[in-house]
């Protein structure tokens, strides 16, 4: 189908646009005409690079794929056509048994489609060697699916090992990835999965999937098995990792709020893999296609809109900081000096955030607490109210409520300290986000069932 099937590793001109298949993409959510798929072809040319070429996302096109299990009257997925723009995150949601997992697993051919074809980048992957294909597609399942008899390092290094990387390169890559998922390489690389918390296992699962730098990441309810607070952190981390790496992510979830939070696009399915609506979170919340979608979104669609406003969009204020190496006395002095000079930021004028050598917040103390400390505790404070800059304002509010504070620390990529956000700021931002709204919607990608899409075979 692509008009330009052999554009090898052309400039990545389109992939960074995470919010949709750039201008000229399919203009209607459904019933697209043949020509509408052309931009997909353009995306493909930029992402046909092999997995270990530091690839960013590759586009995926499902073309009328059907999966009929033997002995079942109706197919689990029927004639689904769906375009997944390069570098975007597409969330598959829908009631239990509607075919989300089946659709996802057809992409890496853990389930072979009964009919139809799948194109990744500019390649038809329907008939290629499945094992080779899967080494180019990251796969994350609930609880990580780690191998219990292998160390964290061995788990992460498995795909690079299969691809024949040398030992040193694998070891370096493992450390780099542990770092990416906010785990200290020295502490964790030699551990076994059973020596990790659920959230840590899930992080390792993500690191393993990213090991060989695949252009595509498939996730099946990745955060289904962890508690709500851990889930929120993992979601924030995924968002910041994705901001850095720009993979094409297809993620199945039960949780519509999670879909709104993580997705550039949300695909809502009904029984039999019928794609009911495929659009941006904003559009789905504002204009649900029908009663089914409305019911699925559930009550409080208005409230869910708040999930769309990110911490980064609100005002993040400065706060006093001090390096952990300097010790409590120096921190106290810095705090007192700022207070005396009147430069202590309003709202957090009586506290100081302690940062480690990599600018990550480890403690947050008031002057009173500092006076009583002779040394900082060795372990970072696990209960710090921390939100990622890409977290939603709802999450920020949650975090403050859970730890009963009126401020939360905001962190950026790799947990670096950015500032603090106050409860008033959140409330203000919510109010203004509500009144703003109606910016023009980006065109949504192609998605439909059984409609014939006439495309020339590659």
């Amino acid at each position, binding site marked *: 189908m692509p008009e330009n099937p052999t554009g090898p590793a052309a400039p990545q001109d389109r992939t960074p646009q995470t919010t949709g298949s750039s201008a000229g993409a399919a203009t209607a959510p459904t019933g697209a005409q043949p020509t509408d798929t052309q931009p997909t072809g353009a995306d493909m040319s930029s992402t046909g690079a092999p997995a270990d070429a530091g690839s960013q996302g590759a586009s995926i096109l499902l073309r009328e794929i059907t999966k009929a299990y033997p002995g079942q009257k109706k197919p689990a997925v029927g004639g689904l056509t769906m375009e997944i723009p390069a570098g975007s995150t597409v969330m598959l949601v829908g009631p239990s048994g509607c075919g989300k997992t089946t659709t996802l697993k057809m992409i*890496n051919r*853990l389930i072979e489609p009964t009919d139809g074809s799948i194109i990744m980048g500019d390649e038809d992957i329907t008939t290629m060697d499945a*094992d*080779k*294909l*899967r*080494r*180019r597609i*990251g*796969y994350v*399942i*609930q*609880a*990580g*699916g*780690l*191998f*219990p*008899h*292998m*160390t964290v390092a061995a788990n992460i290094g*498995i*795909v690079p090992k*299969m691809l024949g990387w040398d030992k040193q390169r694998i070891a370096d890559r493992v450390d780099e990835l542990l770092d990416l998922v906010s785990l200290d390489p020295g502490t964790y690389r030699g551990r*076994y*999965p*059973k020596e990790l918390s659920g959230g840590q296992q899930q992080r390792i699962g993500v690191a*393993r*999937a990213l090991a060989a730098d695949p252009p595509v990441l*498939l996730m099946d309810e990745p955060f289904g098995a962890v508690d709500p607070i851990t889930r929120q952190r993992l979601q924030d981390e995924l968002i910041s990792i994705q901001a850095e790496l720009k993979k094409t992510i297809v993620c199945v979830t039960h949780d519509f709020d999670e879909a709104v939070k993580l997705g550039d696009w949300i695909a809502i399915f009904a029984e039999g893999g019928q794609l009911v609506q495929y659009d941006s979170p904003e559009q789905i919340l504002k204009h649900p296609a029908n009663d089914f979608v409305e019911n699925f979104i559930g009550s409080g669609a208005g409230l869910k809109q708040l999930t769309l406003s990110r911490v980064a969009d609100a005002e993040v204020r400065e706060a006093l900081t001090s390096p952990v190496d300097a010790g409590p006395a120096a921190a106290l002095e810095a705090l007192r000096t700022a207070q005396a000079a009147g430069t202590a930021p309003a709202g957090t004028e009586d506290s100081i955030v302690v940062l480690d050598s990599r600018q990550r917040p480890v403690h947050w103390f008031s002057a009173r607490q500092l006076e009583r400390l002779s040394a900082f505790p060795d372990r970072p404070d696990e209960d710090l109210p921390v939100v990622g800059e890409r977290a939603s304002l709802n999450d920020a509010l949650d975090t403050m409520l859970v730890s009963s504070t009126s401020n939360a620390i905001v962190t950026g990529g790799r947990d670096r300290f950015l500032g603090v956000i106050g409860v008033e700021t959140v409330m203000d931002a919510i109010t203004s986000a509500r009144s703003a709204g109606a910016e023009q919607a980006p065109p949504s990608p192609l998605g439909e069932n059984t409609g014939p899409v006439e495309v020339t075979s590659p």
Partner: protein
Amino acid sequence: MWDYLVDRLPQILFAGWQHFSLVVQCLILATALSIVLAALVYRSGAWTSVANSVTAIGLTIPSFALIGLLIAPVGYGVTPAVIVVTFFATLPILRNAVVGLSSVPAATVESARGIGMSRMRTLLTVELPMAWPVILAGIRVSAQMVMGIAAVAAYALGPGLGGLIFSGLSRLGGANSLESVVVGVIGIIILALLLDLILVGIGRLTTPKGIRA
């Protein structure tokens, strides 16, 4: 008794060594056989039940009868002993290997396949290591069992301590007959304990730390 022991020490030690070596070699053979068989059947429910039935029925066959039946086609000596000992050694190991392989969580296998491991690679690097503690438990049961069966195999003039027992029993009441039987039996018990100890050690060394209980 003591004199008997001192007089015949070289022969006894030699017989003991032969016994031990027969059992160990048959165990290795049986383990390899079991793993191959288990790998062939564990994915199919039907074949798994066939394997389980065979192992259950196999264990009810009296070893003495089997060795008697084997003398006609293969003659006396080491061959029938090896066949019988390996046959019985295979049964518990096969059973455990099938159980071990099929109790590897489906999600683990799926994630192995999902990241691009071939069937064979998944079996060798994920499923077998994870099933290994269970297989090893089967090997230990097997080792205890075939220590005794190897003695019975001496009926067909096979090697080992069984010879002492049979010769003692056949001339019971004669000089040193009781001593001969007792030394044979005690020797087998000592060897069984020794082998179990070795297997525990092997278990320590070969079970990955992440799945050690």
